[in-house]
């Protein structure tokens, strides 16, 4: 069984450590926090301040918003952002598939543990490995196409990664393949910890499989599904570099068919040697992520009420 989520301990615990105020402290909290705090401030605080500075400069000189207008009018940057936007369409697919898998696993008694491990396995595999293996699998004369041809689906044997019109969709399918395991486990964990009474009551009232899970289970799982949706939206906007880099040898090809914002930043900085433009694009990406962070934070508050706001 999956153990209950640690964050929930805090809700049921009658007294919390932090609730004691005015304690005569002998060492005080700050010494304990100092090493970690300095490290976080160096990595995040310094970086973000430096990023803002760099994005207003060119070779050390202040240039105002010039970098921004350069980046925003760069056709490649627009293409990259558009690709990130297209990738967002995988999020609803991911959420529905994960919900379906979680419900199926929940309803299965025989072999549930085995299926659960199997569904989750793609999520722990390193992306470089996934990229390389799928790259081989999806060659024009690779394993998938030879299987499709053997079964008589000659028309379906596409050039999955070589066709510019196809490559991004192939990439999203691979991302779905990997990320669905995370959602399944997340939703399943919540599902198991739900009170059984409502589900049993609905069953006794004669609700079938679909009605039961759409009308009774789904509403109760809303917070965790929302959390997953926000999380995956962040992944699609700013964590897909690895897939693209590995599957296209760092080029975002064929052509520019799979260039995403992260690759744009990486290429501007390390291949085109213009760190200022990269910094500007990174700052824009951070601002975009910020929107999701706010949403994420709101959900955190709702689901963990009582842990952080006493």
């Amino acid at each position, binding site marked *: 069984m*999956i153990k209950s989520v*640690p*964050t929930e*301990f*805090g809700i049921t615990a009658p007294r*919390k*450590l*932090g609730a*004691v105020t005015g304690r005569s*402290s*002998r*060492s005080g909290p*700050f010494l*304990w*926090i100092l090493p*970690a*705090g300095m*490290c*976080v401030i*160096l*990595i*995040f605080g*310094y970086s*973000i301040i430096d*990023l803002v500075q*760099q994005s207003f400069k060119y070779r050390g000189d202040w240039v105002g918003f010039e970098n921004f207008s350069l980046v925003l009018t760069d056709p490649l940057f627009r293409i990259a952002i558009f690709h990130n936007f297209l990738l967002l369409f995988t999020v609803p697919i991911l959420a529905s598939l994960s919900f379906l898998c979680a419900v*199926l696993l929940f309803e*299965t008694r025989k072999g549930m543990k085995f*299926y659960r*491990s*199997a*569904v989750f*396995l*793609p999520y*722990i*595999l*390193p*992306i470089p490995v996934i*990229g*390389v*293996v799928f790259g*081989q699998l999806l060659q024009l004369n690779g*394993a998938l196409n*030879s*299987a499709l041809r053997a079964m008589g689906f000659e028309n379906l044997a596409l050039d999955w990664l070589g066709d510019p019109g196809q490559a991004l969709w192939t990439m999203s399918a691979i991302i779905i*393949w990997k990320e669905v395991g995370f959602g399944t*486990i*997340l939703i399943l*964990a919540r599902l198991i910890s739900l009170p059984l009474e409502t589900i049993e009551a609905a069953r006794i009232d004669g609700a079938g499989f679909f009605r039961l899970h759409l009308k009774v289970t789904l509403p109760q799982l809303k917070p965790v599904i929302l959390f997953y949706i926000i999380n995956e939206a*962040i992944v699609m906007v700013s964590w897909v*570099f690895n897939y693209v*880099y590995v599957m296209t040898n760092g080029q975002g090809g064929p052509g520019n068919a799979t260039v995403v914002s*992260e690759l744009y*930043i990486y290429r501007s900085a390390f291949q085109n040697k213009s760190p200022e433009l990269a*910094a500007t694009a*990174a700052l824009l990406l*951070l601002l975009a992520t910020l929107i999701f962070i706010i949403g*994420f934070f709101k959900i955190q508050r709702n689901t963990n009420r009582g*842990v*952080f706001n006493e």
Partner: protein
Amino acid sequence: MSKKYTPIQKVGITSRQLILILITSMAAVPGYLMVTGSLKTQEEFLNSPWSLPLHPNFKGYSAAWNDQFPTWFRNSFFVTLLAVLITLVMAACAAWGFAHWKWKGRDTVLGILISLMVVPPVVLLIPLFTLGAKLGWISTFRMLILVYIGLMLPFSIYLLTNFFRAIPVSLTEAAEIDGASDFRTFRSVVLPLSGPPLITLTIVNLLWAWNELLLALVFLQSDDKKTLMVGITGFQSRYSLSIPTIMAGMTIATLPLFITYIFGQRYFITGLTAGSVKGE
């Protein structure tokens, strides 16, 4: 299981099982091709990629291992282990500071920390690279380890703070009445109670650091410093003519993770469901 099912229910159960089997096999296909492909010859793989390796041979493995694999492995072990251990110590101390004392602004600081969990690494890449270049730390392990620690800390502190706060206050008070110092209370009361979350955190962080590509790619540029993930990314083009070698390399790279996952599955799942937002 003496419960009787109606025919309709039986159809439902069977179809659900079938869907699960389908999903499972889809999840397993790349792994299957990887492992069987590593044991075949090039011709066997090209002629029948789906068949079982009837005459398994290990040439792919010896070829892959004789490349720079041992070096990459060592580098990855070193970086991952050190980064994860230091993070664990720092995060545990900081979480104790957050959980044990109530101070003004604590919840705000925790809130900021949580939101840092979703800042994409690529955003930090350029400033940190400039910093590394100024310090002369590019292509040194200490730079990458420092960055990894910084990136792992927010989630680690968050997870442990939640756990530490759930420890009944009577336990720590008892220790304090007996005259234990804060450090003593932390070490002898809090840490012994925190085995499961500490294991969870270690496993989640281990997998993250082991799999990380972008930062390792940028910060470790010299050939003898590459980590496994960076190494295998270039491995593909070098051995484009020998698929078994590529597949063998990928299998070797996956093995440590697979073992960690099998032994730590329970803890890993706990860690993820604790509100993790770790991507790759």
